[in-house]
């Protein structure tokens, strides 16, 4: 059997044709007596079609053979080698040109050449050019990696969803057995997360290396304390001897210009502020910046002026008002002003907790304690207050009446899941049903179409999208190139994939990935002329750019490479469609 020509999809034994000769040829091809292509010219074309139908009905893919294409394929090592060679040639050529650059037909003294070099910034320009050579050629090599990355994106997405779901279930069952104090601790942590944590997407205002700036002192900032995940930026004019009595929280994007502005403000008002110590953490909190007002000499008028200045200076960097509007004074979207808490506040809230129950008091006591000292942030105190209010306002009597209605996101290691329950859960029919639903939901989310209203049985019939039996993947092979061109390919792909998902009794990622490839291969089989191939390439690009998971990856790459030429990459990916056999399976 020629493995390059055939790829078994299932063990379905149903015959796809009533043509006995075709059945015989198909059997002999599968036995390896000869290849599909060797039939060509030996038997009538209609027989070949019948053999192909027969093979496909048994779940094999018949793919066009093209020796030329095979020879043109290059291994990743060979690609690197060629790129390296071209890079080296360019560099050598440049070095030679630089060496002879002073030669203008008359004798010129080396001093004059040197002077003109300095005037024209020659050396620097050549150095920059060489750097660009490195970047550009490295990008060429990157084309290959793009493929793998897309595959990983899809795999990790499903894997993450799966693991999270298992973790949540496990956590839910654990919580059933919690004591009152344990449950209060859980509620405190969860409510705090709900209040403070976020998962903002990055936009163009975000500086990826913001943490390299926030960690550095400068002429306005005398020192930066790197503590507990924060960079505390103390202005030259401020002193830590003064305790903060008020604070301003900001829901902003990480931007170097913003830090510059805040440095100036901190310097002018003799105060300090904190930022996350790591770029990633800017996205993970609703209040990445807190400005501490600790200068005892600031009059109420000055503080008012400071508030206005901060609202004005931070406006271009504000994200939204999430997490705000509960404490203090929400002076503008994403800006909140309020008093800093004191030891008295902590002690007072603990007593309030004691009034509710001894268990809540114990939980709060531990919660507002650090290194054996009573300590708590404004956010923590707000969290305790929220629980107390829930008891008072809703007349709750028991810790478990507290609502935790947002996703529980408690760390459970994969190891724990594996050793205890994973196998058990996986074998549970209820879990399998849930997992299938989850995969389907994820698919619907990624490929949003109105499943009900776009269902047209006649169209499916016409396009041969309906699987012949339950185990088959959808077959698009009967579609002519004209039909193909006149159809919205992306919609077709969605329909085909939807059909596939719905036709399966069990879903797994491998099948999903194969099904994507399967559909693409079947499309590509219609490309018999160069013109058709080009048409399909265009459509492939359209499919990819309409595909949200690819699109987001593409956009991310564009951002990460700061506008460098990535079109070549997408071109290359688009061309997967005319690959032969399994090599077509490049994109997912």
């Amino acid at each position, binding site marked *: 059997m020629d493995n390059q020509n055939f*790829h078994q999809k299932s063990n379905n034994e149903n015959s796809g044709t009533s043509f006995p000769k075709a059945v015989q040829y198909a059997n002999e091809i599968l036995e390896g007596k000869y290849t599909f292509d060797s039939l060509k010219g030996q038997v009538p074309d209609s027989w070949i079609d019948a053999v192909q139908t027969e093979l496909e009905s048994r779940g094999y893919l018949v793919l066009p053979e093209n020796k030329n*294409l095979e020879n*043109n*394929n*290059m*291994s*990743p090592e060979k*690609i690197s080698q*060629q*790129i390296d060679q*071209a890079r080296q040639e*360019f560099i050598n050529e*440049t070095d030679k*040109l630089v060496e002879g*650059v*002073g030669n*203008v037909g*008359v004798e*010129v003294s080396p001093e*004059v*050449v040197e*002077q*003109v*070099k300095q*005037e*024209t910034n*020659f050396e620097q*320009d*050549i150095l920059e*050019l060489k750097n*660009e*050579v490195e970047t*550009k*050629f490295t990008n*060429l090599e990157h*084309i*290959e990696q793009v*493929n*793998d990355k897309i*595959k990983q994106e899809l795999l990790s997405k499903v894997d993450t969803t799966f693991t999270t779901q298992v973790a949540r279930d496990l956590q839910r069952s654990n919580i059933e057995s919690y004591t009152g104090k344990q449950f209060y601790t859980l509620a405190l942590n969860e409510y705090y997360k709900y209040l403070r944590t976020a998962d903002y997407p990055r936009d163009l205002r975000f500086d990826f290396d913001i943490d390299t700036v926030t960690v550095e002192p400068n002429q306005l900032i005398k020192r930066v304390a790197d503590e507990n995940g924060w960079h505390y930026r103390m202005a030259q004019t401020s002193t830590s001897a003064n305790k903060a009595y008020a604070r301003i929280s900001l829901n902003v994007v990480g931007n170097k210009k913003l830090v510059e502005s805040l440095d100036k403000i901190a310097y002018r008002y003799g105060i300090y502020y904190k930022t996350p110590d790591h770029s990633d953490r800017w996205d993970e909190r609703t209040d990445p910046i807190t400005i501490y007002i600790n200068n005892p000499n600031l009059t109420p008028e000055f503080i008012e002026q400071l508030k206005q200045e901060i609202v004005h200076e931070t406006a271009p960097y504000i994200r939204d008002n999430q997490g705000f509007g509960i404490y203090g004074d929400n002076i503008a979207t994403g800006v909140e002003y309020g008093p800093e808490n004191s030891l008295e506040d902590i002690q007072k809230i603990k007593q309030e907790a004691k009034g509710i129950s001894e268990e809540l008091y114990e939980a709060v006591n531990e919660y507002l304690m650090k290194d054996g000292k009573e300590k708590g942030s404004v956010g923590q105190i707000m969290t305790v207050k929220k629980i107390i209010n829930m008891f008072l306002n809703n007349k709750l009597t028991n810790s478990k009446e507290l609502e935790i209605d947002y996703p529980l996101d408690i760390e459970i290691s994969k190891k724990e899941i594996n050793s205890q329950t994973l196998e058990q859960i996986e074998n549970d029919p209820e879990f399998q049903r849930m997992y299938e639903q989850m995969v389907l939901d994820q698919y619907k989310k990624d490929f949003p179409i109105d499943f009900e209203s776009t269902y047209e049985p006649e169209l499916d019939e016409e396009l041969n999208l309906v699987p012949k039996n339950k185990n088959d993947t959808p077959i698009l092979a009967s579609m002519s190139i004209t039909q193909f061109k006149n159809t919205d390919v992306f919609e077709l792909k969605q329909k085909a994939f939807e059909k596939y998902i719905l036709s399966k009794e069990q879903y797994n*990622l*491998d099948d999903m*990935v*194969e099904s994507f*490839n399967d559909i693409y291969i079947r499309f590509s089989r219609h490309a018999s002329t160069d013109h058709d191939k080009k048409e399909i390439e265009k459509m492939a690009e359209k499919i990819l750019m309409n595909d949200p998971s690819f699109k987001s990856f593409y956009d991310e790459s564009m951002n990460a490479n700061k506008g460098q030429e990535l079109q*070549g990459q997408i071109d*290359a*990916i688009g*061309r*997967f469609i005319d*690959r032969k056999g*399994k*090599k077509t*399976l*490049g*994109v*997912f």
Partner: protein
Amino acid sequence: MQITKKYMKQQQLQQKIKETVSVLSEKRSAIIKNFRKKLEERVTSDLRNNINNSHNQ
């Protein structure tokens, strides 16, 4: 799972290399042209000064 790594075709790669080299060569040429222009101007003006100086003497 059967996913075979996608390979790049020879002519595609060569086309890409050609495009890259062409863009870079243009930049290189501009840098060198600029330098030579300035150098030629300098040489010409030095020559002119020398001639003027010798006339004056």
